[in-house]
């Protein structure tokens, strides 16, 4: 962290987006995380993604639980709505918020402890319900706030800062999400914004639950020799299997690709994701093949990254449940509360 607030002064070339806002307008409070924390880089990527998509901050809800990762919503989009929930319970809050206001653009930030230990059940059900939420799992393999114990995502055989060896097998968020039927599954690295930003943008435009795991080294407790979540280990072992290039709805497609090398996926709102296969015979639209490929990478000691799976045909929670096509707050009171006669009629259906 630093004690000095980031000065308001900026570079003269700082560009405004279509709303007339600069990247600096999407910042939040001063980060109190350790200097060099991967989470701060993810925050910077989130800021960039929202700014470039011209999203009005007041339309956004940022949600989190407990942990270093869960502090980060304070550090971006200072004008957005926010909810910092009980440990591991952010998916429930998101589910409720999404049901009450389907127009909210929701971003949830969680960590490996919040998502894969105390909140594992919550995560599973949010995926199952396909809540329309960009869910970021900032994975550092360690409990940083409580001084460096192994988390549920710590790899078998990796060592703690003091040299203790982890004897338990990890829970892998990506294969878990694929297994549970998530319609958008990605993995990236805090130290690779070129990859991360387009994935976040695609995730924000995805209709349904977008699961993005980001390996985010803990500089204080998990950046040593023997760690499998350090900056150097991640750089040595990550392989990008799909390169995603998010093309917003209003932009022309200018990037040239070799024919056959690119798969285009139309996003719900009209934007487009170009998926360029880096690994041969990888298909980000085939769940089983993707799963097998990622598992194979894992056994080879490699970390597959990129937009690993996408399915734009799924129904999200509000569609599944036939929720009224407006934010509840915008409905007239008479519709929200149609009176005791209507209640009696409704109750009759369950008798």
């Amino acid at each position, binding site marked *: 962290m630093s004690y*000095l607030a980031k000065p308001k002064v900026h570079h003269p070339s*700082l560009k405004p987006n279509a709303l007339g806002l600069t990247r600096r307008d999407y910042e939040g409070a001063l980060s109190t995380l350790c200097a060099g924390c991967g989470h*701060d*880089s993810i925050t*910077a990527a989130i800021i960039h993604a929202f700014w470039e998509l011209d999203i009005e901050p007041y339309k956004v809800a940022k949600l989190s639980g407990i942990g270093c990762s869960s502090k980060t919503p304070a550090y971006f989009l200072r004008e957005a709505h926010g909810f910092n929930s009980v440990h591991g319970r952010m998916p429930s809050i998101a589910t409720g918020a999404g049901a009450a206001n389907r127009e909210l653009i929701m971003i949830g930030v969680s960590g490996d402890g919040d998502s894969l230990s105390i909140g594992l059940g919550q995560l599973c059900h949010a995926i199952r319900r396909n809540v329309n939420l960009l869910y970021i799992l900032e994975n550092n393999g360690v409990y940083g706030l409580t001084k460096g114990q192994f988390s549920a995502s710590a790899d078998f055989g990796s060592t703690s800062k003091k040299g203790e060896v982890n004897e338990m097998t990890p829970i892998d968020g990506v294969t878990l999400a694929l297994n549970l039927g998530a319609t958008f599954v990605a993995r990236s690295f805090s130290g690779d914004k070129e990859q991360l930003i387009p994935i976040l943008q695609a995730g924000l435009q995805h209709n349904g639950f977008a699961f993005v795991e980001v390996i985010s080294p803990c*500089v204080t407790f998990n950046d040593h020799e023997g760690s499998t979540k350090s900056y150097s280990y991640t750089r040595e072992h990550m392989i990008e299997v799909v390169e995603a290039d998010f093309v917003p709805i209003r932009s022309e497609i200018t990037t040239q690709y070799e024919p056959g090398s690119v798969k285009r996926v139309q996003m719900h709102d009209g934007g487009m994701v170009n998926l360029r296969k880096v690994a041969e015979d990888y298909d980000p639209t085939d769940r089983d093949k993707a799963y097998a490929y990622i598992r194979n990478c894992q056994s080879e000691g490699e970390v597959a990254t990129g937009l690993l799976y996408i399915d734009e045909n799924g129904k999200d929670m509000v569609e599944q449940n036939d929720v009224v096509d407006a934010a509840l707050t915008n409905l007239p009171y008479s519709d929200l509360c149609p009176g005791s006669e209507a209640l009696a009629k409704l109750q009759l259906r369950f008798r």
Partner: protein
Amino acid sequence: MVNMRRTDTNNPDYYHKVVDCQWACPAHTNVPEYIRLIAQGRFDDAYIVNRESNVFPGILGRTCDRPCEPACRRTRVDGKPVAICRLKRVAADHKSDIKDRIPKAPAKKNGKKIALVGAGPSSLTVANDLMPLGYDVTIYEKGPRPGGLMRINIPAFRLPEEVLDEEIGYIVDMGVTMKYDTPVNSLKELLDTKEYDAVFVGSGAPKGKELVLPGRYDTDQVFIGIEWLESIHFGHIDSVGKRVLIIGVGNTAMDCCRSAKRLGATEVKVIARKTRKYFKASPWELEDAEEENVEILENLSPVQFVVENGKLVGMEFDKFTSQEVDGKLIQEPAGRITIPCDSVILAIGQENAFPWIERNIGLDFDPKWDMPVVDKDTFMSTREGVFFGGDAAFGPANIIWAVEQGHQAAISIHKYCIGESLSDRPPRGQTLASTKMGLHEWSYSNYFDPASRQKMVHVDLPVRFSKMTIEVEKGFTEEQTALEVQRCLNCDIETHFTDSLCIECDACIDICPVDCLTLTENGEEADLRTRLTAPALNMEQALFVSSELKQTGRVMVKDENICIHCGLCAERCPTYAWDMRKFALHLPYAGRPAPVETVAQVAQVTS
């Protein structure tokens, strides 16, 4: 494609250039250091830091041409430079008695005698540098008092006499032999006495340019600017016509028009050949003149003086229209105009004049300009042992250049006297010391203060016109000083990068408020400049480039242009790869070589 090489930060020039003000100052005054000292109320120390390089802080704090201010990084950040010059004056005005901190001449002389011609800023600087080494220095001055143009050409309402006397006194009181009212009428004679081991000519550019047009000599109401100012100074002139035209629009013209106002002129017009953009006067001097209701007329070229019955009644000008085409001023004739006036002051430039230097003494003159041939580095003429400096060396410039040339000439004179090669110039050195005081504490105030530039308060118009010697500028108040010092960005607290420590976590890039930093593939400079977080379009500002970093082979690039030296990169750096290090430039002076091997560093530096 040629990749950029790792920036050599061990070369003092690299970090020196980042300190824009210090780099732009001919004497390389350590500006940020003295501003910090002022901020701490250490006016004596601030004054001494100044005096080390510029010798006349009080004088320059009022009159300097301030090449530092247009260079100031703050201009590029919020539009207005730090008021460096006026802060210098704060140090000079508020210091206590610092006499015992001024270098003294040793009791035992070294046996060498040096003659200096003219008691202006360059000669005084030579004396300042040589006296402490034990030289016997004699200054020949044609006038009754020392100071040269600083005394006789700069009006007292800009530079009070006490300030001059005090600062010149520090030098003269070291024991310089002053020969007043003693013009040197023959250099040959002076040299033939063989009394001196070396002679320095610092006689300035004392001749104002003439404008010979019809009517010039039919009236006694046409004056040459610098001579006129001199006559005012000596009290030979104490009045002027009601309507005065000043021909020319340089800084001398500004002193003339403002002096005319104080001599009782009611209608003062300054005549310019071109448009404002091309004026030679400093913008602040133009503003000060306009504040005194001086009118500046553009696009006029003098044709003749209109004299009727022996009385000057006006001046005729060709008029022009001006327009800028592709950055060039195109002027077309647009008729004529006669402007009525009672007096005309010519302020169209100064010239050198060396009627007292014989052309057959082995001292070559450039035939084209009739100027002595002077070596640009050693300041020695083609006659061994005769040196030049200030306006006498290369034509009219300003005080701060005269000072710097005095320093360089003193180095040469000393080398000459002890038999060292003159062309072998002493190198500069640097010290880099970490300012880290604690986890997130630095030994400088790294907070960016958004305060805007403080405006100098001036004496009311009627009061200032009542007397020639009322200083117009009141100087900064305590409150103004407190605000202005915080505007300094501390550019000498350098962002120092240690390549081997970087883990490429992006923390510095994410936090930098002004997008200075980028991790990217190396490349040619022109290409690299386009690929940064913010494009580096200011070609005068350097790029720092690291060596290839160990994790990805990319390089860390920093565009120095807009960096506000807030130190957030170093605060967010988990491995101490970025550190804020105080850069001190060590300049060599006569008999005092700069310590060049004094790189005090906290962490190990890799290439």
